[in-house]
């Protein structure tokens, strides 16, 4: 009798413990509904929406400010902010597309737009933009890039800002050496040579040899060769002999005028090395402005758009455009669209880009006072929107673009730097992969 009472007590305790554990585990959880197949609905235009920031952390504060402004103006809408580390944004989206839990609105850059759009997760935005107060107020160049990156005729991203390749150089070292600002490729190469003194651990340039090396290499190649289109019919111009010659000249800087450790340079190492060492020039984008400012102070450096040819011709590759997308699975698309409209409005877009140090997509914001004072951003905006600038559109729309431009060929570029692969073989390999990917893409579209 006693033992049966004891047993039933134990069972009751076990059930209670189990229940407590289960309740604790599921407390405040959600069902993660909203995968790619979910068509969502327009909703009431009120209630809660979730926003994923694809570059969370550094931009968290400015987004929270924008959200506060939005909620003041729209008290019946609450925005839940989720900051995602930039390096993991693509995996987070991919997992949510397969398993559910997509947000209503998300930051989706052009570099990953095609991969997210091709899985059917994004809502086309052409119709909404046509009826919006934003219509006609966004940079046409950026809208074109957004549309091209989506891989079709539809617009899947409202651009918020653009980056641009920037040649950062140390004004103090240039003045000391009596050098002109590196505005052309000839001046760039001359400065790289003159500022190098290996015995004193001084170098003219730092080259990106590790993660993310392909875009700067292509930028250098097209910018020098003057080829203005990525495609010639169905074949890429990447391995055109002019590009091969241009890249050979650029790669020859490695070890001659750069530290040998550059073969492993990702942007973090490259920027840290430039900010703390004695290196004349660094080719990165506008994003590292604040780091240089903190490390060097405003007097010791300048940022120019990448060099032009001797006659002033400017050719550059298309830079990633950041923007906001509306997810098809959203149950409150009306409220989500209101948030996008608000975030890209003049005042908010200006505020965001001033903080991020990037070029605003809103043309009214691009004329604001702060941009006139921030020289690198101003020059980049002029270069990007200048009449003479030719932009080579990279094929972000190819689902294989990220694989080709990262995993497949970054190790090959390191081989090129180390002299284990010729520039021609490298560009031929890239071209073969691109031509195949383009053919596959055309077959499916």
């Amino acid at each position, binding site marked *: 009798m006693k033992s049966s009472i004891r047993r039933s007590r134990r069972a009751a305790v076990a059930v209670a413990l189990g229940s407590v554990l289960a309740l*604790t*585990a*599921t*407390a*405040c*959880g*959600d*069902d*993660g*509904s909203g995968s790619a197949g979910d068509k969502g609905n327009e909703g009431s235009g009120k209630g809660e929406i*979730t926003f*994923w920031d694809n*570059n*969370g*952390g*550094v*931009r*968290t*504060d400015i987004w929270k400010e924008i959200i506060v402004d939005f909620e003041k103006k729209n008290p019946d809408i609450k925005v*839940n*902010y*989720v*900051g*995602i*580390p*930039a*390096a*993991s944004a693509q*995996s*987070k989206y991919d*997992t*949510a597309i*397969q*398993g*559910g*839990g997509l947000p209503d609105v998300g930051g989706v*850059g052009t570099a990953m737009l095609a991969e997210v759009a091709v899985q059917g997760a994004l809502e086309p935005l052409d119709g909404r933009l046509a009826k919006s107060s934003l219509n006609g107020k966004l940079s046409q160049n950026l809208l074109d890039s957004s549309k091209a990156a989506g891989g079709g005729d539809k617009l899947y991203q409202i651009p918020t800002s653009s*980056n641009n390749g920037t040649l950062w150089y140390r004004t103090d070292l240039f003045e000391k050496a009596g050098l002109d600002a590196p505005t052309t490729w000839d001046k760039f190469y001359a400065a790289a040579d003159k500022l190098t003194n290996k015995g004193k651990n001084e170098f003219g340039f730092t080259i990106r040899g590790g993660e993310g090396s392909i875009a700067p290499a292509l930028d250098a190649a097209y910018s020098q060769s003057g080829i203005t289109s990525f495609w010639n019919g169905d074949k890429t111009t990447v391995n055109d002999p002019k590009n091969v010659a241009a890249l050979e000249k650029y790669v020859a800087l490695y070890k001659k005028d750069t530290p040998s450790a550059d073969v492993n340079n990702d*942007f*973090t190492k490259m*920027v*840290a090395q430039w*900010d*703390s060492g004695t290196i004349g020039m660094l080719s*990165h*984008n*506008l*994003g*590292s402005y*604040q*780091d240089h400012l*903190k*490390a*060097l*102070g405003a007097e010791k450096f300048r940022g120019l758009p990448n060099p032009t040819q001797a006659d002033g011709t400017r050719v550059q590759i298309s830079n990633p455009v950041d923007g906001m997308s509306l997810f098809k699975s959203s149950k409150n698309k009306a409220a989500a669209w209101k948030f996008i409209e608000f975030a890209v409005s003049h005042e908010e877009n200006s505020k965001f880009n001033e903080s991020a140090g990037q070029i605003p997509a809103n043309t009214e914001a691009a004329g604001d006072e702060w941009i006139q004072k921030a020289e690198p951003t101003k020059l980049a905006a002029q270069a990007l929107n200048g009449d003479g600038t030719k932009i080579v559109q990279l094929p972000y729309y190819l689902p294989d673009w990220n694989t080709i431009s990262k995993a497949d060929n970054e190790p090959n570029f390191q081989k090129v730097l180390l002299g284990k692969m010729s520039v021609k073989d490298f560009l031929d390999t890239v071209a073969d992969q691109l031509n195949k990917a383009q053919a596959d893409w055309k077959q499916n579209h």
Partner: protein
Amino acid sequence: MITEIAPAPDRVASEPARPRRKRRAWDEVPRWHIYLPLSLYLLFTLVPFYWILLFALRPAGSTSLVPWPMTFDHFDKVWNERAFATFFQNSVLVGIATLVMTTLVALAGGYALARFDFRVKKAFMLALLCTQFVPGALLLVPLFEIFAKLQMINSLGSVIIAETVFQLPLSMILISGFIRNVPASLEEAAWVDGCNRFTAFRIVVLPLLRPGLIAVGSFAFVHAWNHFLFALMFLSDQGKQTIPVGLNTLMSADSVDLGALAAGGIIAAVPVVIVFAFIQKWLITGFSAGAVKG
């Protein structure tokens, strides 16, 4: 009366002479032959840590090789502005819950593997080993779907369960090894004295498993503390994220605040260093015992 006290016998003389210890080749090695390579190795190992400390403690923009003038601004920034106080709290919760659940379940499973014979025991052990070859990323989508169905996305419970599940196979194998080291006759003696199986286990076996439990528990804690993937994927609310995710948010797409990143790295490393400092002795004993008999 004078008492004569006999002189104490010469102990040295009366005791058999101890055999003189032979000088081994090892003793003849000059000390610096040992200490110099060890110091060089230590220097090599510690330089990266010094570099992290340097970045964390010197002001932004400084290129000094010593952290002077010293500043705690970076720590203040990550702890207060970047919500590391919350991330830290969440990581502690995930780490301790994983430790407790892993240890308890591994103890039960390990006991069964060590003390009972059943038909598919070898196949079961093999299956446990095989699970170690499956990377977590491969199971991400299935796990995500399961947790979504259980309404556990964006709940710390999902991370705790996932971490526990991934820790269990190795932990069970290790614990079963430790339990096999304890003679079954000890338990049987306790049964004879009137204990049931559970009481005998609790009173006789459990105290002897302390090094093993510490090894398994600390391994589970450290793994859960450092693991990034599950926390990133299953948790969205910033108030629920853990330290590894927080560290990643300090690196944006185009810019990295190295001072803040270094300070965040130190905050992340301190609990693990403290755990290892306290349990080092048991950890080594535990792992070697489990490994030999496992």
